[in-house]
């Protein structure tokens, strides 16, 4: 763009800093309330508090993905180290899976973690531009650590020449991003905010490039597989852990399904109330005005959406219960039929795609049903739409 006065790139970012700061203050207050209201061991209660607070919380991915990953994929010994630090935010994490070149096709990720037996460390690198981690929430400004999904490379035993490695597939690694005292980026870490989005702008979705960043061997998730100090790869025969790892992702999906009902209900509440109060046109004898809601076309637009908002909420509860029942069976060591896990996976995946799509389109329908007022930020509908649309497109791969 040649003319600076019509360059809007700076305007897009205007005022995002103060909104982010306020969102962080709110996140901290929720953390304080978690302690003062004795919700530290009541995950559902704390989730309810966060849902009711209803703001774009830049720390969301810490509770949503980082901590559950540690609980599912790290050994008890590793958990004993990391979880207390996560609980009081000495460690605040994000989840770095998606890359510029690949998203849900995890097998094709390019980021590597190469084991160096001399120093007992993994060396993490994003070797190409397309290997750049892109989109992780909480990464751009907030997180101190990232759960980096990378291809593990161990020294090759079949061709033990220097620089020869065996690809052991993708694994999870905890990588420090920022100095815990100064919050400055650590050597080899290049990260930042990817910039303003359609909505959800308190969330610092980020990018990440790693240039030979070294982490201790203990930072690899070792519940399903580990690397010995001499570089041997050892897979652990723990089917329970593998199933629990899969269920963690299902839990996220069930909350997304319920959230679709919640977001659609908010939009319907605004649109239905408005339609009841707003007048348009006179009765036949001219003695009174019709409320917009009396028109069949308005009802036809809004009432099916209102009904669906209830359905989605209840469907989310049902998937959550099915998941909790399955999880209990797995933890007991009981035999869980493969069909039960498959049904849970298919149901939660299908409902996630369907419910979020309907909710996203439905919020826009509600906005239009409010006429000009729906275009006003103060109606609550434009920010709700902008914020919600990210849910429609995110996490389609798990």
């Amino acid at each position, binding site marked *: 763009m040649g003319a600076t006065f019509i360059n809007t790139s700076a305007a897009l970012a205007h005022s995002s800093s103060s909104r982010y700061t306020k969102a962080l203050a709110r996140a901290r*207050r929720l953390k304080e309330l978690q302690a003062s209201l004795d919700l530290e061991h009541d995950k559902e*209660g704390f989730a309810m508090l966060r849902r009711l607070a209803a703001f774009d919380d830049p720390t969301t991915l810490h509770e949503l993905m980082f901590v559950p990953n540690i609980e599912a994929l790290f050994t008890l010994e590793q958990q004993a180290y990391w979880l207390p630090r996560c609980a009081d935010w000495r460690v605040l994490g994000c989840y770095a899976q998606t890359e510029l070149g690949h998203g849900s096709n995890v097998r094709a990720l390019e980021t590597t973690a190469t084991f160096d037996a001399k120093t007992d460390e993994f060396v993490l690198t994003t070797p190409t531009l397309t290997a750049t981690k892109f989109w992780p929430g909480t990464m751009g400004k907030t997180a101190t650590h990232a759960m980096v999904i990378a291809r593990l490379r161990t020294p090759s035993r079949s061709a033990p020449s220097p620089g020869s490695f065996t690809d052991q597939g993708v694994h999870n690694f905890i990588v420090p991003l920022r100095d815990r005292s100064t919050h400055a980026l650590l050597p080899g870490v290049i990260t930042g905010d990817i910039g303003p989005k359609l909505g959800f702008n308190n969330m610092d979705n980020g990018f990440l490039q790693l240039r030979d960043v070294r982490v201790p061997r203990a930072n690899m998730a070792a519940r399903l597989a580990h690397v010995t100090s001499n570089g041997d790869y050892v897979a652990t025969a723990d089917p329970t852990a593998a199933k629990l790892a899969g269920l963690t992702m299902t839990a996220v999906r069930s909350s997304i399904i319920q959230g679709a009902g919640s977001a659609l209900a908010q939009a319907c509440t605004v649109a239905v109330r408005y339609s009841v109060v707003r007048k348009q046109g006179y009765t036949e004898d001219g003695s009174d005005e019709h409320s917009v809601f009396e028109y069949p076309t308005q009802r036809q637009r809004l009432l099916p959406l209102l009904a669906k908002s209830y359905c989605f909420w209840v469907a989310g509860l049902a998937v959550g219960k099915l998941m909790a029942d399955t999880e209990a069976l797995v933890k007991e060591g009981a035999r869980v039929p493969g069909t039960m896990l498959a049904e849970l996976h298919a149901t939660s995946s299908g409902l996630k795609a369907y419910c979020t799509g309907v909710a996203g389109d439905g919020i826009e329908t509600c906005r239009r049903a409010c006429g000009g007022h729906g275009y006003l930020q103060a109606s609550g509908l434009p920010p709700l739409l902008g914020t919600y649309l990210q849910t429609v497109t995110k996490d389609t791969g798990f």
Partner: protein
Amino acid sequence: MQVNTDLAIARTRAHFDVEVMALMLAGGSAKSMQRRRLLAILDADPLFENRLDILEERVTRYLWEQLSSILAQL
């Protein structure tokens, strides 16, 4: 808060028990009570007042707060 007359009339026409529905959606009476308790705490906390969020960083917000403080002194 004053409720619009049309809205109040529409609410009296509900064909189901709103309280029972609220209990069911919350997942039972205990969770419903917890939800109301948490909502009351957030409602009382000025940090979670979001009415002015959309005007953040704008002169309007400054003027609004000036006006509020003047009105408070009257």
